[in-house]
């Protein structure tokens, strides 16, 4: 087995453990490359089926192409899709101009909390990777959140030998991270190998492309001429610029992401 085979097998094992362990399970689908790869892995794990709902937290600030792509794929794959927007916050004027971290908290973290409360999710599958950012690098594969979605990161329970945390008090939930050990390059090599459709925004137009997708206002493009998957792979092999360099919320202060994630951010 080669590297991608091993990563794929591990992710499928994790997805199946999650499906077996939790009565109420859902997968967060941001429409970005990572969660789209995860969607593909789920189809593989369950032989063409998707036996749980997919959740898209729509901040209303997403790039329009993303929404079009989302609806197309959801229809093609016949997904049970939950789209949720924190309209209360939006109607009260929430937006990036209120401060990026405040906005992220309201339109993503709080929105997610509403969805968890409404559907009583016990397990949420999230496509974060260790190599994205520091606090994610320290994650467990099954990572507990309390009723308020808070993460007790300084005292995480043991996780070994693929035995995951499946026991927790009612009201808490588990964030399941099937692609935690993948790198950005793994993701693109897998997209190539499996021929997975991804949103066009990743491919360069006029010398610029998105490496990471979020809200329009807070996600910058990088200089690039990579307009095919092969070219992206080539580019990644030779770049040493951080993937999330275009993401504003990561730059606010050294521990911004840690703080956001402690409060329940993905």
């Amino acid at each position, binding site marked *: *087995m*080669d*590297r*991608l*085979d*091993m990563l*794929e*097998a*591990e992710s*499928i*094992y994790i997805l*199946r*453990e999650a*499906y*077996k362990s939790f009565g109420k399970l859902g997968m967060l689908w941001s429409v970005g490359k990572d969660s789209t790869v995860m969607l593909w892995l789920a*189809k*593989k*794990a*369950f*032989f*063409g*089926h998707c*036996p749980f709902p997919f959740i898209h937290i729509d901040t209303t600030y997403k790039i329009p192409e993303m929404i079009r792509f989302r609806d197309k794929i959801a229809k093609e794959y016949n997904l049970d899709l939950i789209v949720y927007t924190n309209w209360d916050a939006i109607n009260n004027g929430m937006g990036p101009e209120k401060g990026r971290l405040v906005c992220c908290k309201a339109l993503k973290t709080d929105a997610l909390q509403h969805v968890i409360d409404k559907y009583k999710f016990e397990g949420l599958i999230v496509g974060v990777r*260790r*190599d994205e*950012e*520091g*606090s994610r*690098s*320290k994650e*467990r594969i099954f990572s507990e959140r309390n009723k308020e979605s808070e993460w007790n*990161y*300084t005292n*995480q*329970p*043991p*996780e*070994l*030998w693929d*035995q995951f*945390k499946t*026991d*927790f*008090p009612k009201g808490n939930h588990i964030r399941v991270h099937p692609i935690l*050990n993948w*790198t950005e390059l793994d993701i693109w*090599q897998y997209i*190539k*190998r*499996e021929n997975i459709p991804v949103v066009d925004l990743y491919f360069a137009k006029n010398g610029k492309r998105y490496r990471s997708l979020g809200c329009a206002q807070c996600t910058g493009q990088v200089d690039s001429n990579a307009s095919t998957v092969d070219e992206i*792979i080539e580019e990644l092999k030779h770049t*040493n*610029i*951080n*993937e999330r*360099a275009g993401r504003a919320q990561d730059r606010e202060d*050294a*521990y911004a992401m*840690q703080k956001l994630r402690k409060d329940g951010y993905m």
Partner: protein
Amino acid sequence: MVESKEIFKIVVVGHVDHGKSTVIGRLLYDTKSLPEGAIEKVKRISKETGKPFEYAYLLDAFEEEQKQGITIDTTQIQFHTKKRDYVIIDAPGHVEFLKNMISGAANAEAALLVIDANEGVREQSKRHGYILSLLGIKKVYVLVNKMDLIDYSEEKFLDVKSDMDIFLKSINVFPQKYIPVSAFHGENIALSSEKMPWYKGDTVLDALDIFEKDKEITDKPLRLPIQDVYKFDNRRIIAGRIESGVLNVGDEIVIYPSKRTSKIKSIEYWQEKDKTTKAEAGMSVGITLFDEFFYKRGEFITRKDDEAPLVGDTFKANIFWMSENRLIVNKRYKLKLVTQETECEIAAINKVIDASTLFSNDDAKEVNTNEVAEVVIKTKDKICFDEFRNNHVTGRFVIVDGYDISGGGIINGLEILDAANKFIKGNVELPITCFDEYYYLIPSNEIKKVAVERKSYKIGDRLPINGDTYYYPDNFDVVDLNNELSALIRDGRLVDLINLNEYEYKGYPVYSSDGFLANVKNQDDFINFKNDFKKSKYGLVDFANKWYDPMANKRIVYKAV
């Protein structure tokens, strides 16, 4: 084609502050494996917090870690050489975070044990060494770090080396290399040190590529623990990961513990390109069988031609305990072994060991945080497993106490609890094992003395004088020199139980209470036999070899477990 290399996982362990995270940070820095801006970010943090620059910050991402200059939780980071891809696992050294160290180390194939040359071997250096051996990690290099603090002295390096070697040898860990380094200054990390011309060996970077990967587990017997059974459409698919061995469509299989047999009908797939008729260890698969009976999570699918797993509810294990709540006997815990899950109890704590001093306590009644122990575990349901030395993945388990995984363990073998058989007269009791059987167990390939039934015999009771593996004459005497009791057996029945000083040799063969024939032919022999025993209290082996013929009335019979 996507080029894809071998992955090798290495954990870095050792005492707190001895420089584990710095070793990794420096390795990444020297091999230019860091994304742009990573070093600048560390410099910025150092400036903001007024602390000196630390390579360790590249790993210690949490604010709490950077503020305290300590690793709290484990992390993994990737880097590669020409030869292969590495996953380097950073582990915390503080004893309070041992559970995190174990969470990291449990994934590794090899380890770098870091020791501060100035401080020398410390408590966690040893404890981590012990944990490595328990986890089955045999490939170890010791890095003697901070050589700059001892003027790059070879003599001090050799002192540390010999200290650590003595300890590691005593727990059967044999490091393949000792490398003197200064992680902070990059000496012998990626570049050979000019400060230590006396060292002729490899740098850490070069040494990594020398670790040899374990042989493939595809050569072992098939173990496919059932993870789940799906019925999304007209197929009834058994899903699971092949933990060892290979399987092919058409293979005859046996499912344990039920021992039902069937044949593999298909390996299922979603994408046409994944269609296949064979699969091997490491793959997450879905299969269908020709016979549709009830299969459930936890059962082992094995090939009929492959060696069977062990099945049982009592086994011996070495465990490490990570919870703040102590482990005690006769409390209910949850045990998870691959996809099996069952209630369990600790039937016996044979020994508790302090992993850093190796002090061992045979009378311990509980196992405390960070202790390791030899225990006997009894599960509520029969489970399938292998001995750890034969198959790592199916030979290890975790114990869940309350909500958290609290302990982990490796299985040393099936345990058959000793039964106490006795002769009884009034309130006098003589424990005996003379009616135990001697079996050669398959597949574990060991000879075991097994009590078939637990029973007490009173005066007049008929005795089982002919067993599977032993036979006694109708008339004989049992003499127990230790308990100073003798039992008289006539016509296959127990007729009396008397004190040894009342006993006289009457011409009947004399056996020990373990069932060994004594070389006693007359009363004089008997007196010598008794006196010899008294003299030889501290040399029982010589006494036994001189006086007993253990096989006189026995044979060994094969038995499957």
